[in-house]
């Protein structure tokens, strides 16, 4: 226990030390020191996480208590952390992928001046710290600390280049949309406290406790929790901040807006799966929103020309898949997809970063092309990422996506059909992206072409490692019908229970799999053969424009919500406040002033008024004192009548 207490503190505090070190010393350290320290702290945390993981494997879950966050007569919220099968997996992903992205950043951000370089790493370290609190917390309030903490870091990193007004807007939008979700989360917490008096997982998430809740309570609580997840994990209707979040440096997109933070919603629901499984309504809502988001984002991704925007919408879409998985009860499938997605999406974003780096900050894929030979490592690793996300066996995305699709089919074949449609679109837009960027002829300026170069080792090493992981990570969840053991599902039994029997025959599963893979492959081949030759022009069809303009959802929100609220606020400020309330007050004031002048107690000036009232006060006192309490009798008589 003492060992784990130290170990968990170690995991948590190293990134925080890094934050303080770089944040406070930003004007003092050289870039080299900053880079070594920032990356080193996360690697240290990663190594400690491995020990924690092994400890859980050998001895099971551990909860450690440090002190009480809030302790009052009716409510106690301890600062407790828990390492178990679920959080230890997330620990490895966060610190592992985090280490690689820190390493990558040391080269990617090298043109920044030292104080800003330090600021960048301080934010990144703080992000890891918050994310670790989120997954390690042993109750919903500690989770909420990390939950808002990662939102803050996301805000700071999206707006990292703070002189750019658009980036600031994107940062603010991210924070505010997340806050809307956070309000849902908070209300769910209060609801839990009101009904159960506690927020500790070990007390809330038991069948006995849950049986005390009415189905209305469970549905309400889980829906509110899901609102929180919508914000953080960018689901309809709170998803529009994520594509804008690409304003941040590309490694940030990889770490925060693809691999880790946005999966917090999936983590939270998996953690609370007992609650969610008790509400069919919530489960259906989650599945429907998940699949809708997956399809909506995929249609938009097909038409985007900014390399990061495509990946951003792809992330929204993949998160939709994970929620579909949660909605149909495939919790381990969703976690499986979180893990594989963390690898291949981090890889794709970092690959995109390498491309952008080589292209001198060009992000429009129509101005790329033929980068295959110039950036060989980036090319090969990016291709692996594309294959993995497209769901081609035996790469990792295939296994995790297939597990979700199979569970979806068992729930309702419609989910499966829509899921396969989305998978086809995924394969299409990813290989459209791949072909436009890497195949064909170079379409940029001659100047750009001369400067094309493969990125330094600090950037390519993470690419290679992530590519390997993207290729083989499926091994942790090979289904039994393929003779596998599904290590992950067994891991998660303490959290999500025994894998649910889907009631599908093996031959049925094989058929479903074959169909989805062949459709994806067809989409993939069409995309490559189309975009090896040409790029997309401005869309001409109505539907093409509609997708290209992102379904006009930003404009809709602006017209339907932002502007009316702004006008309402202006109305309150200029009409109600100034004219109605203050008007009444000033009117009364003038009346007093007028009558005071009549009494001629004073000439003018506020001191005179003061004396006036002082006199009134004194008179009151004297009346009371000398008149044998007559004024008091007056008051009490007044009341008795």
């Amino acid at each position: 226990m003492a060992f784990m207490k130290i170990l968990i503190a170690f995991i948590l505090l190293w990134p925080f030390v890094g934050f303080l070190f770089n944040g406070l010393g930003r004007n003092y350290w050289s870039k080299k020191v900053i880079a070594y320290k920032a990356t080193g702290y996360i690697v240290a945390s990663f190594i400690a996480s491995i020990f924690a993981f092994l400890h859980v494997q050998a001895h099971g879950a551990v909860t450690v208590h440090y002190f009480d966050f809030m302790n009052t007569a009716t409510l106690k919220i301890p600062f407790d952390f828990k390492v178990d099968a679920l959080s230890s997996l997330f620990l490895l992903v966060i610190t592992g992928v985090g280490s690689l992205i820190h390493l990558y950043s040391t080269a990617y951000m090298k043109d920044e001046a030292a104080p800003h370089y330090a600021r960048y790493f301080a934010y990144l370290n703080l992000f890891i710290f918050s994310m670790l609190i989120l997954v390690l917390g042993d109750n919903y309030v500690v989770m909420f600390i990390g939950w808002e903490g990662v939102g803050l870091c996301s805000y700071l990193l999206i707006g990292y280049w703070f002189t750019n007004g658009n980036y600031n807007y994107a940062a603010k939008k991210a924070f505010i949309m997340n806050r809307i979700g956070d309000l849902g989360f908070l209300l769910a917490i209060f609801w839990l406290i009101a009904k159960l008096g506690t927020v500790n997982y070990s007390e809330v998430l038991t069948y006995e406790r849950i049986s005390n809740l009415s189905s209305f309570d469970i549905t309400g609580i889980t829906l509110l929790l899901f609102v929180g997840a919508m914000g953080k994990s960018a689901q309809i209707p709170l998803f529009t901040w994520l594509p804008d979040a690409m304003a941040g440096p590309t490694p940030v997109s990889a770490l925060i807006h693809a691999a880790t933070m946005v999966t917090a919603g999936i983590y939270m629901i998996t953690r609370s799966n007992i609650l969610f499984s008790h509400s069919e309504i919530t489960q259906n809502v989650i599945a429907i929103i998940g699949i809708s988001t997956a399809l909506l984002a995929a249609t938009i991704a097909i038409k985007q020309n900014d390399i990061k925007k495509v990946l951003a919408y792809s992330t929204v879409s993949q998160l939709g898949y994970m929620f579909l998985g949660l909605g149909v009860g495939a919790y381990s499938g969703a976690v499986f997809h979180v893990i594989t997605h963390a690898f291949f999406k981090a890889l794709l974003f970092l690959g995109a970063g390498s491309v952008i780096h080589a292209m001198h900050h060009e992000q429009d894929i129509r101005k790329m092309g033929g980068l295959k030979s110039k950036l060989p490592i980036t090319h090969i690793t990016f291709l692996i990422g594309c294959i993995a996300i497209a769901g081609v066996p035996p790469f990792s995305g295939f296994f995790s996506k297939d597990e979700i699709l199979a569970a979806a089919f068992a729930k309702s074949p419609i989910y499966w059909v829509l899921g396969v449609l989305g998978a086809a679109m995924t394969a299409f837009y990813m290989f459209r992206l791949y072909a436009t960027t890497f195949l064909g002829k170079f379409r940029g300026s001659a100047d750009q072409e001369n400067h094309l170069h493969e990125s330094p080792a600090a950037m390519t090493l993470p690419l290679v490692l992530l590519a390997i992981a993207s290729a083989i990570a499926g091994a942790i969840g090979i289904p039994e019908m393929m003779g596998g053991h599904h290590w992950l599902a067994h891991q998660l039994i303490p959290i999500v229970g025994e894998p649910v029997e889907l009631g599908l025959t093996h031959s049925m599963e094989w058929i479903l799999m074959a169909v989805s893979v062949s459709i994806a492959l067809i989409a993939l081949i069409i995309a490559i053969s189309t975009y090896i030759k040409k790029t997309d022009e401005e869309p001409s069809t109505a539907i093409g424009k509609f997708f290209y303009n992102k379904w006009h959802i930003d404009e809709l929100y602006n017209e339907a919500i932002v502007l009316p609220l702004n006008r309402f606020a202006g109305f309150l400020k200029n009409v109600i406040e100034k004219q109605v309330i203050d008007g009444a007050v000033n009117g009364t004031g003038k009346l007093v002033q007028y009558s005071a002048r009549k009494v001629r107690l004073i000439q003018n000036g506020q001191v005179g008024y003061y004396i006036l009232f002082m006199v009134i006060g004194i008179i009151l006192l004297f009346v009371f004192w000398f008149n044998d309490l007559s004024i008091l009798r007056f008051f009490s008589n007044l009341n008795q009548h």
Partner: protein
Amino acid sequence: MILVSLLFIPILAAILVLFIKNNKLANWTAILLSAFTLLLVLQTLAAPIADFDIAWLPNLNSRFVLHADGLAKILLLLTAISFPSILIATAKNEYKQKNVFLSLLLFTQAGLMGVFLAGDALLFYFFWELALIPVYFLCSIWGGEKRIAITFKFFIYTFLGSLFMLAGILFVNAHTVGHSFSIQSFVHANLTNAQQVTAFALFFIAFAIKMPIFPLHTWQPDAYEQSPTAVTMVMSAVMVKMGLYGILRWLMPLFPFAFMAHTHFVVALSVMGVLYASFIAIRQDDIKRLIAYSSIAHIGLMNAALFTHTQVATQGVLIQLFSHGINVLGLWIVADIIEQQTGTRSMQQMGGLAKKQPTLAILLVGFALANIALPLTNSFVGEFLMFNGLFLFNPWMAALAGVSIVLAAIYTLNMVQKVAYGDISEKINTMQGPNKGAQAVLIVLLILVFITGVYAQPLFDLTADTLKQLFVK
């Protein structure tokens, strides 16, 4: 004795400073003596303190009773931290006849200390006025160009409130055994329910104006905008707490029936005020008015929390009384530095602070985060408990008031964006940055924000006795 010295050291300092013509020396004297007061307050925190009780106005049956429980102590601590902070942070500001200015500020401190310590209703009223009167002079002599009209409004409002309270005090006094003014005899006053309601109304109007509660709030943004910033800081960080303190110390124990009868009305009114002020804050361009409306929203939430009459929300308020003071003080100091050095309060003319003065920008962001109650800042603890109580009282009220946490993010981040981000504006470009004293104060306050945000247990412990008194019968 220590309680008396908490009153007399500020008074002594005020008189002493009045006779020091050298501005620098006057400043240092004020700072040192207020720092000494802080040390004394820190001494009172550890253990229970015996009441100080001597005869005062025998004809009136009023005694000079000073009583320091957790509620008093946490506000004494806030007052004692605020004054040296304000004096240091604004030390470089130029005021004509600075010694008089400082002297009046210190009288205010004495008044505030007295308000929080008084265990006798007449004494309470006396200190209530003692805290206000110097502020009228400070605003009307040292304020901005619209000071005369604004101070008049402020004065009429608060003085009317005071009169109502005085009437209320006399009314209750008439129903006590032996016409005493002591708080114990007030608690046991023999009031019918209808009489309770009358007295409740008289007291509540005074407190509601002081906080202020919508729709009695319009004096405040004007007063904050037009007062010299040092005075604004005193009003915003400490004086508005007088209203909340009054509810906790007088209203809740004295008129339990009337209090319970008005919970729904006051909570609804307060929540409405919270949203109202938050919406208006979104549209402010003047940084001081933005902070003013933000503060109205925060105080409104605290009032709503008190009237839920839940233990958990009351605990939240007891902590938030302190935390809000620290946060708003930090915001005011940053705003003051910017206004002093750029000559503008319009945020449209700001921008680029992060590039020009990174340290000040970081401090601003820090206090902004506390203002939106981000977890691990001090105000999260208080607001979490308050919202929790609101939810227990009525889930819909909690949801409605919860909208303000989104609105707070909007207006606070708007402020950060306009002031700190973007390219360096012409005005910001003229800035030299905070002087060492102001910067040190800001850093200390920000450290306090995070320490009490991570580990608030000392504040819980400090206020446990008050909570017990109010809820365990």
